[in-house]
């Protein structure tokens, strides 16, 4: 069995890539995907920890986290759609009416 430490490390790398992507990419969809990446890192982490502790709760947490991610995607896409309807772009940099 793989040492949970490796999995955790992978999760950490995934998380950082996700975070980095979240603020370096302009396309809202890509940003959403990056957020999903972060949540996947979380899932991975939970699973790894669960296997480390031999505890079932971690898996349950992971399942819930997946559900949360799903809900987030649903809502996110809907919100992006309405943004596209009004601003006709999905570039986050160009949506900056509200500032200061």
């Amino acid at each position, binding site marked *: 069995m793989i040492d949970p430490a490796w999995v955790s490390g992978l999760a950490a790398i995934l998380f950082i890539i996700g975070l980095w992507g979240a603020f370096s990419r302009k396309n809202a969809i890509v940003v959403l995907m990056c957020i999903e990446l972060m949540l996947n890192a979380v899932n991975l*982490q939970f699973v790894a920890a669960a296997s*480390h*502790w031999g505890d079932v709760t971690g898996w349950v*947490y992971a399942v819930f986290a997946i559900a949360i991610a799903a*809900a987030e995607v649903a809502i996110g896409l809907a919100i992006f759609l309405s943004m596209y*309807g*009004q*601003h006709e772009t999905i570039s*986050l940099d160009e949506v900056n009416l509200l500032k200061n």
Partner: protein
Amino acid sequence: MIGQLHSSRVYSTEGVSEMDNESVEVFSTEFWQAFAPEMVLVIGLALVFIVPNLGNSKFRIPLTKVQVPWFLGGRRFKITGSPAIPGILATATLFTALGMMIIETIDGDMASTTVTSGDIVLLQIDNFSRFFEIIFLAAVLLASMASLDRIPAHTFSGKKSLDEMYDNRRQADFYILMLTTALGMSTVALAQDLFVLFIGLELASLATYVLVGFHKESKSGAEAGVKYFIVGSVASGIGLYGLSLLYLEFGSLQLTTLAANWDDGSILGTIALGLVLVGFGFKVSAAPFHFAAPDAYAGANSPVAGVLATASKAMGMIGLIRVLLVVALPDSQTDGSAVWLYTLATLSVVTMTWGNLAALGSTNPKRMLAYSSVAHAGYMMAALTAVGAWKWGEVDAPADYAEAIVAAVLFHLCVLVAFKLGAFLVLGLLEMEGGASRLSALSGLARRDPLIGTAMFIFMLALAGVPPLAGFMSKFLVVAGIVSASVGELSTNGSVSFSDIHWIWWLALAMFLNSAISVFYYLRIGVVMFLDTPEEGRRKPLPHGASIRMAIWICLVATIILGLSGDTLIDMCYRAAESLNLA
């Protein structure tokens, strides 16, 4: 000494939580009894789903021609299909639930009820959680009362504009989301497991993302929704990752487990703590995680923004209290301050200063209120810092200091509902006749409607912390808490050196200096209202809006009454803080 003092109080009996602690399994009979108010919410939510959809549809039993009335769908009934129904239903639901909770809590003799699933404690009803649920429900109730006018339902008859048709169509959606927010927040308040807490947080958050972007036909509404969603998601992603690290470190996300093992944790726990802090920091809009908040408030309609500034902030504050005070405080036997002490102190000072400075020049009243709520977050975080500063091993009854401070924070969160939300509701009233995102929208308000103008001015004074309003009382309590913690037991010595006073005293000074700065922008609102002439198109009297005015009056009365005589509420706060069992 303090212990003796407090044992003499009627509502505080030692060990009440252990004696009366009742543990119930999920979905048992006792469970339903204990969660009656929440069940009201759930039922109300279901009703808002169902009732507008009641119609004359029939269900044909397959292979037959028998049509059984099914009542869902089809041609809607005239009475239940009225667009006004969801609002009324939601308001009634919230009112009922809130009433039940208040009746349950106000006398003070409340046993705590724990919900367990196996050996995992999921939820706990106690003074603390009930207190927060009251805050949440009150805020959402006032907001939905206001929304009855803000997003008005129009009757079917007659010709309607496009906006009116939009408004009619989304009545149910709006109130469903409001109720969902309330439910999610209640879950946060009740949660005894950090993951459950996070689930509740996500439930409430997802609903508020939609609420912020609710006016999707306006550019700013859509934009606000996007920003709030994106930044919020990232923040909760970071928070969740922190949770996962905590789980990795301790093997459980139970608050009790975490608290018991905290002192044995490694650096991983500290890192996880930092990540979780980010998640909640976004919710309380602490700098530098607050950036989306002003945009969101400005884009959302005012009652929703009010909920974000009060209830949502309180929700984040629960998270902070749970994580920082319940989990991450050193054991009462060790001599030392909390590991997050400097972090939180820095954050709080930065937050309050940033908020106030930004608000100082802001000419959009909603953004100004948003920045001011950032500043208020800073004040509360300063209070939490004071709890962490105390050297736990050196005094007899440290919990009393901590409890007093937490009580002050709770008081602040509670009265914030009165005057911060009240201010947003006044802006909501103005939004009914056009935008409220320019300072000039407020000009001449006192002349157009003296009572509303005066109410707004009183809200502003309360925000600034002018006595004898609730805002002063809450700031006074917060600072008193900080100072009492910094002074500690020094007073019994007779002779005190200033250097003996803990440095967190300076947080009190920073807080007061900040609130002095803040007077400037709060007063500016008053000056504009009382001095300027109304702008073009706003010469007529204000829209009537019976229920939004009612909501404003409630806020106003609460602002004044809680300032003049806050004793009942302070006792409630104190009981709530006690039930945290900090010591």
